């Protein structure tokens, strides 16, 4: 790599590796007028005074650029080769050193697993174990396998390729940008080629989840809670590089949670969801019960539970309809409680 930096001009470098413009930009290196020089020659033009003035470490800038190019080339070539098909958790111990109540759990892509257990029971630790791809080297002694194998250490340290994306209840947008600018920024950092198309795709998906539509010109900080959540989920599904998504509860207001999960799963993500909401918990294929820092057991969602889920969804629809109509200024009556079940029979929900 250092060889090509010695011989190629900045123009040649930019043609071959268009992304290095980010490197120049973030390091505030103005290479204009030096396109026909090598990067070393460009660095040589700084006087000692300028280097001190702007805190420039030219030797480091040169070495860093070559690392940066290597990393980005790897990152861009990554997408296809490094698909994550499955995540396996092999049991460790709980806080008292007792073996966890399962042997091995494998979750395949497009599967949803929920995580239940009281606050402080060890959810963060489980998430951290996955994020770090633990190899018996964390307090729980768990082992994490990806595609059935010990994963590359790179997952731990790469800043562009984290194994896990996280979506939590407290998350907010803090940037002062419109939805469009925000999505473009994210797409650019992910080196997406067709930015406009991706931005369109995300807003479409987000609006499909949100109760109230919003446009590309809306400032992200003025989105409602439901809209923000919808945008975050659509953006994570479509644009995040991380193959595993950890969700910490999705509020019931202003967002279609079933569609949200469907969207994530259809993007080939492995979805882990900490929740105590019965609809979400039962929507998962399996659920992990956490107790005293360890996984107490893994429960497969039973047929009966799935039937209960169908009822719950029906009740949820009633509430959603009322919410929708209340927003429009309508009045509520008993008719809302009458719904059709899947056999076409009229059902009355009796609230005890």
């Amino acid at each position: 790599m250092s060889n090509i930096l010695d011989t190629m001009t900045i123009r040649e470098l930019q043609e071959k590796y268009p992304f290095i413009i980010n490197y120049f930009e973030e390091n505030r290196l103005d290479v204009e007028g030096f396109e026909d020089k090598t990067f070393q020659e460009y660095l040589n033009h700084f006087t000692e005074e300028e280097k001190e003035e702007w805190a420039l470490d030219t030797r480091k800038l040169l070495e860093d650029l070559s690392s940066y190019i290597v990393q980005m080339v790897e990152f861009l070539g990554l997408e296809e080769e490094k698909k994550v098909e499955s995540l396996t958790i092999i049991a460790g111990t709980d806080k008292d050193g007792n073996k966890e109540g399962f042997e091995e759990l494998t979750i395949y892509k497009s599967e949803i697993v929920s995580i239940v257990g009281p606050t402080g029971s060890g959810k963060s630790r489980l998430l951290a174990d996955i994020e770090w791809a633990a190899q018996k080297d964390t307090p729980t002694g768990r082992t994490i396998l990806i595609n059935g194998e010990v994963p590359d250490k790179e997952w731990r340290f790469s800043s562009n390729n984290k194994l896990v994306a996280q979506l939590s209840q407290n998350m907010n947008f803090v940037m002062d940008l419109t939805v469009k600018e925000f999505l473009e920024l994210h797409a650019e950092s992910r080196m997406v080629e067709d930015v406009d198309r991706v931005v369109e795709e995300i807003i479409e998906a987000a609006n499909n989840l949100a109760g109230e539509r919003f446009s590309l010109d809306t400032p992200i900080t003025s989105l409602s809670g439901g809209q923000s959540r919808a945008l975050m989920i659509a953006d994570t599904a479509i644009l995040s590089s991380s193959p595993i998504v950890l969700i910490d509860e999705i509020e019931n207001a202003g967002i279609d949670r079933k569609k949200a999960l469907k969207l994530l799963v259809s993007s080939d993500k492995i979805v882990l969801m900490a929740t105590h909401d019965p609809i979400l918990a039962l929507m998962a294929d399996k659920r992990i019960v956490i107790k005293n820092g360890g996984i107490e057991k893994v429960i497969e969602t039973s047929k009966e539970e799935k039937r209960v889920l169908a009822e719950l969804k029906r009740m949820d629809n009633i509430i959603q309809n009322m919410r929708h109509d209340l927003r429009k200024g309508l009045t509520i009556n008993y008719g809302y409680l009458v719904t059709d079940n899947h056999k076409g029979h009229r059902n009355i929900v009796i609230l005890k």
Partner: protein
Amino acid sequence: MNLVTVSGPPSSGKTSVILKVIQALKERDISVGVVKFDCLYTDDDILYQRAGVPVKKGLSGSLCPDHFFVSNIEEVVEWGIREDLDLLITESAGLCNRCSPYIKDIKSVCVIDNLSGINTPKKIGPMLKSADIVVITKGDIVSQAEREVFSSRVNSVNPRAITMHVNGLTGQGAFELSTLLYDESANIEGVQGKELRFPMPSALCSYCLGETRIGEAYQMGNVRKIKLGDENE
């Protein structure tokens, strides 16, 4: 004894991260002490005391905090060795974005937070760019997209650093960070003769010397003027 220098902008979460890391190190029977550097005020030493961590604090007062750090690090390391620590962590706030307390061959950690804005990596100088490990905090309150954009910008100013996300409240990631900080083979006897990674700016102007009056007539030494564009007209 191992020495690790931790620095980062005020309120980025340095103390919370260090406290969580120490918890993890204690599990491995590694004894850790902290020296907290600040400018005018800190009560972080109380937090460390409460956690049973041997701690000293140094307030730079009227001196440049980073210069104060370098002038004291030798004695601080001697204190740590007398206390029989396995690991001494120094904590200091980066106040002007130009200095950094990092020393060659001594592990350095920069803590910055997602809330500080995506242009922050560009604004912070050697404190971020020459760190071995960059810890990004407060990831639990911003969106996944902002986290990704932020860490990709950190990566473009310091591609060779290990970048980690640590949650100072829940401690998620702190254990992992702790495994990177202590290394038996990195023990030192002292820091005399070691060198800073990056020189600190040479500033000595009238105001460094206590001048309070405003106006060109009172300015001596290193004085520089903003280019307001009038000189070409």
